[in-house]
């Protein structure tokens, strides 16, 4: 156990928290958070980072262990208690009211008598913003804000309420590289000001660039704390995963790429009349991985769904599948997923919403295997033998951890859910394989397993489309990268020569070629 330090803002001793009888989310965790310091809490998904921080913010109560704040033992039984102790949590998913101004959101939920003096609130907010260099104004409505501004507002909110211990849960997940740098600047300012800051993350380069110390969790257990200056990506990965891992993607030069999918002038107008996709034109080649980059919500989802036959496209759009043997183009416009299948075209699609679209959460692996093939054959009854065998095969090949292949997939961890989905889509022997955020929420080992599965498919001549958010991976994995910005295509670049900065710029570029703050 670590000795208590005079500058310790929070000390945790022997924290244990379990859910049900089998899942131990935190097991005897002891660590300290110091003032004037940035601590990274590093661990793979399911390692218990968020549970631990939820204990500090009063959402869960630990089964065992002690929490000391400012040297005094405390019991945090509700978010209110946590607040009173000066702990502020900035969640991954923003908790803001869109139609309210920044100031209104900040005072929302605060106790007080009579009317709020919004003017005084505004002054105080302005003072906080000036102190740390935040770029929001109290009068700004949330719906007018960029993602990065919304996050800033969340930070201002907890500062306004007097928090001096800030916990940020995966704060960079939604930011561009440029915005991430800005956030780190703010974090350094707050650190200088004597705040204690915790960043929950699994991105190693961020850990190295912003934090002073790193505490590592693995499968609910505390592994250790190291000073960032003594750590490297490799040493951290080993602590996080528990064994040596090789993090490389075998990117072969595409062999004889052939046009497989031709998308021309693809536009989709949303219900509110705004174009979610605007005049997109590109080809996807068999034997190549085409990356699709962009801030989330820039039309990636719509693009893949349009190709899969799930979205109605505007007149004038064309999507052609080029037959591998005859080079004959078949238009996919206006076809439902079943009609596309009946044309003999196998499009595999790993959608972003795994349990809400790609799989049926309440069904086991076997029944999920049948999702796209159950209607085969003339029988009135479903045939479960083949799906059962396929489920067993995928369970074995991809090392899916599940009590049984009939356990509802919603009970599996995110990584295993994704293996089930990707396994099924690859087993269909597709001509085109589309994936949206295929590794979101997966641990490093599983992520690389997925990258390599995609690379294998590419080597087999499949046209792979990979919508991703981690630019480092896009650059390492993809042969070409298409960048979307607010529904427009801002460029297609070579994955082998692309840089993060170049992609970052394209991600925030409007059609006029100027950089826009409001994307």
């Amino acid at each position, binding site marked *: 156990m670590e000795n208590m330090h005079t500058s310790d803002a929070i000390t945790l001793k022997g924290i244990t928290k379990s*859910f049900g009888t089998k899942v131990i989310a935190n097991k005897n965790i002891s660590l300290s958070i110091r003032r004037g310091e940035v601590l990274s809490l590093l661990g793979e998904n399911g390692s218990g980072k968020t549970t631990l921080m939820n204990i500090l913010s009063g959402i869960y109560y630990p089964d065992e262990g002690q929490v000391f704040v400012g040297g005094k033992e405390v*019991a945090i039984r509700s978010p209110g208690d946590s607040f009173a102790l000066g702990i502020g949590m900035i969640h991954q998913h923003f908790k803001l009211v869109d139609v309210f101004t920044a100031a209104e959101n900040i005072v929302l939920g605060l106790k007080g008598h009579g009317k709020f003096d919004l003017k005084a609130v505004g002054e105080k907010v302005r003072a906080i913003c000036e102190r740390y260099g935040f770029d929001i104004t109290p009068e700004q409505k949330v719906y007018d804000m960029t993602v990065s501004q919304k996050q800033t507002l969340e930070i201002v909110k907890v500062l306004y309420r007097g928090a001096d211990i800030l916990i940020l849960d995966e704060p960079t997940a939604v930011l561009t590289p440029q915005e991430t740098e800005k956030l780190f600047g703010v974090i350094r300012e707050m650190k200088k000001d004597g705040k204690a800051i915790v960043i929950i993350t699994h991105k190693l380069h961020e850990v190295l660039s912003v934090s002073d110390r790193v505490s590592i969790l693995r499968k609910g257990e505390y592994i250790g704390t190291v000073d960032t200056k003594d750590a490297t990506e490799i040493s951290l990965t080993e602590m996080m995963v528990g064994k040596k891992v090789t993090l490389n993607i075998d990117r072969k030069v595409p062999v004889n790429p052939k046009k497989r999918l031709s998308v021309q002038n693809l536009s989709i107008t949303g219900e509110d009349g705004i174009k979610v996709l605007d005049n997109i034109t590109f080809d996807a080649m068999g034997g190549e991985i085409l990356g699709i980059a962009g801030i989330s919500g820039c039309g990636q989802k719509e693009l893949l769904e349009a190709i899969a036959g799930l979205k109605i496209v505007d007149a004038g759009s064309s999507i052609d599948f080029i037959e591998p043997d005859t080079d004959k183009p078949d238009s996919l416009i206006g076809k439902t997923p079943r009609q596309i299948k009946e044309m003999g075209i196998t499009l595999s699609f790993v959608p972003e919403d795994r349990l809400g679209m790609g799989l049926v959460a309440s*069904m086991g692996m076997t029944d999920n295997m049948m999702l796209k093939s159950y209607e085969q054959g003339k029988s009135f009854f479903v045939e479960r033998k083949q799906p059962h065998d396929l489920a067993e095969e995928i369970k074995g090949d991809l090392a899916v951890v599940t009590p049984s292949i009939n356990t509802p997939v919603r009970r599996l961890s995110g990584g295993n859910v994704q293996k089930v989905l990707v396994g099924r889509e690859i087993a269909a022997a597709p001509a085109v394989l589309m994936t949206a955020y295929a590794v979101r929420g997966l641990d490093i080992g599983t992520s690389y397993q997925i990258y390599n599965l995609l690379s294998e498919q590419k080597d087999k001549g499949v046209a792979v489309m990979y919508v991703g958010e981690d630019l480092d991976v896009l650059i390492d994995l993809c042969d070409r990268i298409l960048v979307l910005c607010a529904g427009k295509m801002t460029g297609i670049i070579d994955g082998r020569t692309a840089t993060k900065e170049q992609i970052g710029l394209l991600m925030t570029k409007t059609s006029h070629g100027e950089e826009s703050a409001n994307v």
Partner: protein
Amino acid sequence: MNKAENTHLREPLVRLAKQDGVPVKKKVGIRAAAIVLALVIDALFIFLVTKLNPIQVYAEMFKGTFETSLRFMWAMRDMVSLLCIGIALAPAFKMRFWNIGAEGQVLMGGFATALCMMYCQSLPTPVLFLVMILTSVICGAVWGLIPAVFKARWNTNETLFTLMMNYVAIQIVAYATNILRGQASSLGTINMGTKIGWFPKIAGHDFTLNIIIVAVLTVLMFIYLKHTKHGYEISVVGESENTARYAGIDVAKVTLRTMLISGAICGLCGFIIVAGNKHTIATNTAGGNGFTAIIVAWLAKFNTFYMALISFMLIFLEKGAGQIASSFGLNDFITDIISGIILFCILGSEFFINYRLIFRHKK
């Protein structure tokens, strides 16, 4: 930090934790404990409020269903009416289509049967029965299909729609019976003398056929939901329409087809109630079973065999309540409280199967 001192140093008294994978033994134990608890609370209630001997009251309650074989058969007859509607609701509910219009669908089916019995008497018996079945099934199906069409086409709310269709059905039957009965005070038993359109007596009861039909339906619906492509589609649509579209399932088609089946079985239920049991039609022919069946379907999680058990339990409580009311001269409220306590405990025990309570432990 002043506020920090106010924070109590004690953990909460009770916390909840979700649990699953409870062993069957424990589940049975929890449920048995719930029944014992219900009997104990009821005993206290009976003793303190009515000054009766609880054991005697329980014995009477038991007699409600089991005193004579005839009583048992009556209980079975009422149970299958309830179960049949539960079976009809199962596919709709599994698809997350909240069909709360079973009452009306049953009534329309029963109404069609009654009309056939009155106006098609000249037909040979097999043909008459065929016509009765067909018209009642079609009437029930149409009543179920109308809300489904609106849902599939314009995404209207099916809960309100199916509910309101009940009142339309009730008014149609009220209007029609008013005309049909003429000067009489009620429509009375149809074909009392000729028994045309009545189910034949089997093993001494004319409702035996009801029990057989519903037993067959129980098995068929179980297989339909579990082992057919239709059943699979219903599960997928119910779980997530997005997933269904992704899988290439035509959601509108499945919605219409499933409600057609749901309404048709309700219509069939109206047919067996009128032809096999009541032999008349009135606004209360469905007797609220259309709503009680919602509870049956939900508690059984759409498994038709569990539905049979739950229907039986509900009918047992109902018969028992009636029995103690008449033998001890108690009013309905007291008997309702007694059966209500039993239901409450049994349903409440599900909570302890799904959640674990963690009490504050000493440090």
